[in-house]
């Protein structure tokens, strides 16, 4: 937010412990609830937690992971949502941000409420609403479709429609969120660039592809990584809207992790799945740092 330069830190005595006291609460909780669990989860992924007592068997969980068709199904579903939904949503969010940035748009308060209100809704309430709306026989959506002459869709009872339902729900919830971030990026583009382009005779489309999109790239990449990490952690929507069905057509990595860890209580195997999620998330973050330059992320 602040546009201030990094502070000129005051010259302090060598033995000044003040900053450490201020950091103490955060890092105390961080050690207990971040570092310890992250390290222990890593260890757990190499333990056979099926035996009593738990024993160290290096390949027990990771070996199973590679052969487990349910894991690959969950990974495949998660990646499908990621590859299809995230780009569509970000394209939509970019256009929305441009519309909001345009001085042609009136009634901005109304539009802001319409598109940004979903982002205060929790995952559970909005999943409940979408399950009601997408109800197969009696849902209001199918009623609307049939009343304009379209066939009703078995949203929750067939594989592809169930996936589409999840993607529509996520797009409704997260487009405004990304548009807010993109809009803040848009507003940092100097207006003089557009004025210069206009003088050179560039139309709105040329301005969009020549100025807006290239300068928005770092923010877009940030949104992409954020959405990717969010999608990798997808749980509530498939858990409540489609109950990971039909069959396991909308099983995701985290719904599978939940079933493994907290239905079957196989903590070792669930930890291996958790680390898979983390490794993929880290890979996407590294891509962002490589593409944008770590400096910008750090500062």
């Amino acid at each position, binding site marked *: *937010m602040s*546009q*201030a330069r990094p*502070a000129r830190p*005051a010259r302090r005595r060598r033995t000044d412990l*003040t*900053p*450490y006291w*201020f*950091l103490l*609460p*955060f*890092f105390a*909780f961080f050690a207990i*609830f*971040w570092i*310890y*669990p*992250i390290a*222990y989860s890593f260890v757990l992924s190499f333990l056979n937690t099926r035996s009593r007592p738990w024993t160290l068997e290096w390949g027990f969980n990771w070996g199973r992971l590679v052969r487990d068709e349910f894991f690959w199904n969950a990974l495949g579903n998660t990646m499908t949502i990621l590859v299809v939904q995230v780009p569509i949503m970000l394209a939509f969010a970019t256009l929305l941000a441009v519309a909001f940035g*345009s001085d*042609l748009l009136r009634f901005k308060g109304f539009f802001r*409420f319409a598109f*940004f*209100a*979903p982002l*205060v809704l*929790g*995952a*559970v*309430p*909005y*999943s*409940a*609403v979408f399950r009601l*709306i997408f109800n197969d*026989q*009696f*849902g209001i959506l199918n*009623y609307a479709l049939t009343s304009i002459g379209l066939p009703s869709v078995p949203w929750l009872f067939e594989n592809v429609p169930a996936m589409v339902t999840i993607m529509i729900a996520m797009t*409704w919830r997260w487009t405004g969120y990304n548009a*807010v*971030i993109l809009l*803040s990026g848009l507003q*940092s583009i100097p207006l003089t660039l557009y004025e210069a382009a206009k003088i050179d005779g560039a139309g709105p489309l040329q301005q969009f592809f020549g100025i807006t999109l290239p300068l928005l790239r770092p923010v877009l990449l940030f949104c992409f990584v*954020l959405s990717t*990490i969010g999608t990798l*952690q997808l*749980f509530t929507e498939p*858990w409540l809207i489609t109950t990971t069905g039909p069959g396991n057509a909308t099983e995701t990595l*985290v719904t599978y992790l939940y079933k493994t*860890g*907290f239905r079957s209580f196989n*903590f070792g195997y669930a930890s291996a799945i958790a680390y898979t*999620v*983390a490794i993929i998330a*880290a890979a996407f*973050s590294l891509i962002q740092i490589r593409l944008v330059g770590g400096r910008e992320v*750090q*500062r």
Partner: protein
Amino acid sequence: MRRDRLVRSVLLHALMVPLAILFLLPIAWMLISATLPNNEILAAPPTLLPGMHLAENWRDLNSDLNFLRAVANSVGISVIFTTFATLVAAMSGYAFAKFRFAGRGVLFTVVIAALTIPFEVRAIPQYLLVARELSLANTWWAIILPWLAYPLGVFFMRQNMLSVPTDLLEAARIDGAGEARIFFRIVLPIMRPALAAVAIVLFLFQWNDYFWPLLILSQKDAYTIPVALGTLVGLTRVSWGGIMVGTAIATLPFLILFLWLQRYFIAGITAGAVKD
């Protein structure tokens, strides 16, 4: 030129208005069906205007569990959490922004790295720790403690604390004010807008969090609103009207607050994205 602008403006609105209405429909349907009996929600054609069934739906919502208890749990947990987590974030943000000390770069990099670590990696050991070692399952503290270290809050506070004038702090030190006094009496009051933005984000996060509470809360009396609602969605004996009353209670306060405090919501959301 003028006519051209007018045409483009009309086209833009022709596109945006239907889209906005489409986006508003789920919220509208949630509010309307909270007042309807089940046979009118799931009818063809459905009733599209509010009905008189709100009180019955509220009773129905409470038929399986005490929803008021869940509301009390959510309010208590979110208020206590937000108070402490905001303070913790402000303190570390202040240290990172206004002091030079050994390990600053490393520690701040750790905070940034933590932003990309999915919660799932912590879930299982944290469950074993909180439920088995600390015996805190089904308590407010089980929900509050694990998130008091909230990296995004630190990051956001640090960015904002950079704008606190160093001269002001130095002047206070020369006047003999202690470090704690400087922080509470000078720094926090100037930072009020940033604190509000962080507090909103933290409150909203805790109010809506589902995965961790689902793991650690097993008794109905300990449920937060999301866990209670999630349980009801899976049951067939509670009517949709009842569930929608619950979702309305979970969301309506924030929809109203959002209309009122949009600026802070948006500052909080863009916290991670904007770089100085």
